C-alpha cells in the first residue's frame, strides 16, 4: 500500500490553515507541517521534503510567491508540487502565481470539496 502523500500547509490565518489541513486529510494526505509564514515554510520544506505544499500567497515577511520561487531554485525541493491559495483572483494574480512556479492556483474563498480535488490531483502525479 502506498504511503500517504506528505503535505506542508502554510497560511498566516489560523482558521484557514486548519481548514486546509482538514481538506488535506479528506484527500488522504498527511500534514507534515502547518506553519504561519513563508520563512517557516521554507525551513520545513527543506527538512520534511513534502510531496505537496499548500501555500497562502499573502504571508508576512516571505510571501507564498517567494517561497515558491526559492523552492524551485533549490534542487532539493524543486520537485515538490505547489498549490497556491490567494484572495487575489484576477487573471494577473493567477499568472503571477504560475510564473513563480506553482502547479495550481485556488482563489479564496474556495469550496472545501474543490481543495480536496486539487490535493488529490496534484499528489496523484507524485511517484509512489
Amino acid at each position, binding site marked *: 500500500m502506498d504511503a500517504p502523500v506528505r503535505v506542508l500547509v502554510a497560511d498566516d*490565518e489560523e*482558521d*484557514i490553515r486548519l*481548514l486546509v489541513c*482538514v481538506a488535506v486529510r479528506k484527500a488522504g494526505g498527511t500534514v507534515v507541517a502547518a506553519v504561519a509564514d513563508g520563512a517557516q515554510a521554507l525551513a520545513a520544506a527543506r527538512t520534511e521534503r513534502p510531496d505537496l505544499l499548500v501555500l497562502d500567497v*499573502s504571508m508576512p515577511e516571505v510571501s507564498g510567491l517567494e517561497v515558491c520561487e526559492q523552492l524551485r531554485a533549490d534542487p532539493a525541493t524543486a520537485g515538490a508540487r505547489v498549490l497556491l491559495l490567494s*484572495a*487575489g483572483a*484576477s*487573471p*494577473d494574480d493567477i499568472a503571477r502565481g504560475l510564473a513563480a512556479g506553482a502547479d495550481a492556483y485556488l482563489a*479564496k*474563498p*474556495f*469550496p*472545501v*470539496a474543490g481543495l480536496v480535488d486539487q490535493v488529490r490531483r496534484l499528489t496523484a502525479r507524485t511517484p509512489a
Partner: protein
Amino acid sequence: MTALTDRDTTAPAPLAPAPAAPAGRRRRTAHAVPAAVAAAGLVVLVVSPGTPAVLLAVVAVAASIAELTRRLRVQSSAAADLEAQRLDLLTLGQSTASELEVATRMMRARAQTMTSVIDAVTEQSIIGTDRDGLIRVWNPGAERMLGLPRAEVVRLRSITDFHAPEELDPEDGSPAGPADRFAALVRGAQEHGSDVRDWTYLTADGRRLTVSVAITPRTDDDGEQAGWNFVGTDMTEARATERLKDQFVSLISHELRTPLSSILGYLELVLDDEEQPLTDEQRQYLNTVERNAQRLLRLVGDLLFTAQVDAGKLTLQPEDVDLAGIVRAAEETARVTAAARGVAVVLDVPAEGLVVRGDALRLGQACDNLVSNAVKFTPSGGQVTLQLGTGWRDADGGVTDGASPGATPVAVLSVRDTGMGIPTGEQGRLFTSFFRASTARRNAVPGVGLGLTITKAITTAHGGTLGVTSAEGRGTTFTLALPLG
C-alpha cells in the same frame, strides 16, 4: 530731288528751312549730307562749294542744337519714366509698409494673446526650451509649481535641472551628462511625435512632485524644430489617492475575503458531514448563514470589480460564447427566487443558440445582474421576460430590428419586467455607482447600486451597448446589444 526735305515737322522754329538763300542761287548737287545731321532728321540744306561759310556754321550749330535737343528729349523721357517708376515704387513701398505694419500688429497681437494665455495658466506648468533643453518659456504655472521666478530660469537653466536625475540616467548606472539626460527626456516624443507620462519634478524647496508631462516639439515660422514644449499637471495628490484606493481594494480583497473563506469553508464541512448529519432545523439555520455569507461575498466581489473598472484594469478573456446558454443559466439561477416571490420568468431564446465573442464569466455576470434585478423589482404576480435575438445597431447606438445604412449586426438581449419602474428623471443616473432609484428605496428593495454599473462596464468592455426604457408603475426593459461576428 528737291532742295528741301522736311522729315520732322516738330523741329524747332530756328531750324526751319533757311530762307536766307535766294531762289536763284539754289542748284542741284550731289554733295553728301553730314551723317549726324541726317540721322538727326533735321532740315537738311544741300550745300555746295559756293555755300557761304556763315551759312554752313549756322547749319552746323543748328544740327548740334537739334542733336542736343533730341538727347535732351530722350533724357527727359527717361527721366519721366524714372519718375513714374519712382512713384510706382513709392506707392508699392507705402503699400508694403502698410501691409508690414498690419502684419506686425497682427504678430504682436498674436504673441500678446499667446503670452496672455500662457500667463493665465496657473495650475499647469508650461515650459518651452530650445533644442538643447535651455529654458526659453516659463509660465506662472511653472513658477508656482517649481518655486522659481521666470527671471531666474529663462536662458539660465536647463529643463533637466528640474527632473529627478535617476529617471533620466541610464538604467545600467553609467554616467550621463546634461545632453544625455535631455535626450532621455524627449526620446519618447522624438519617436512618437508626442509623449505623455508621469515624471518626478524637483521643486526649488526640495519637494518631489509627480507630474504628468505632455512633451511636444516646437517649430519656428519656417517649420523647423526650434525646441520642445513641456506642459505639466501636478498629479502628486491624485496619484497618492489612487495608491490609497488600490491599498483599500487590496485590504478589502484580503481582509474580507479571508474571513468569508473561513465562514463558507467550515459551513461546508458541517453541512456535508455524513458522519454527523444535521437535523432539518440545524440545516435550515446554517443554510441561512451560508446564503448571507454568499451575499456578502458577492458584495465584496462587486466592490472589487468596480474598483478594477475605475482603475481601467478590467480585463476580458474572450472566446466564442453561446449567449443563449448564458441567458438560460441566468434564468435558472433566478428561478428559485422568482418562484418564491411569485414572479413568472418567461424565456424566449433561439434553440440553435447565438454565439458572440466575449468573456463567458463576465457576460454571465451581466446577465445574472439584469435578470436578478428584474425579479427583485417585480411584485408578486408579475412577469419577467428574457428575449434573445438579433438586430442592428446604427451609428448612433440605436438598436433596431431592420438593417439601415451603416448599421452593424448585433445580438440583442432584452430583459423586460412588469415591476415598479424607474422615474424618468432618474434613468440617466442608473449606471452610476451606488445610485439607487427612488422606487427601489421606497419599496425597500435590497441592494447597494453596483449591479447596473458593473453590467454597463462589462457591456462596454465587449463593445456593446446597454439601454433602458421604463415607465413608473408599469415596468422596465433593459436592452443589451453585443457585436456579432
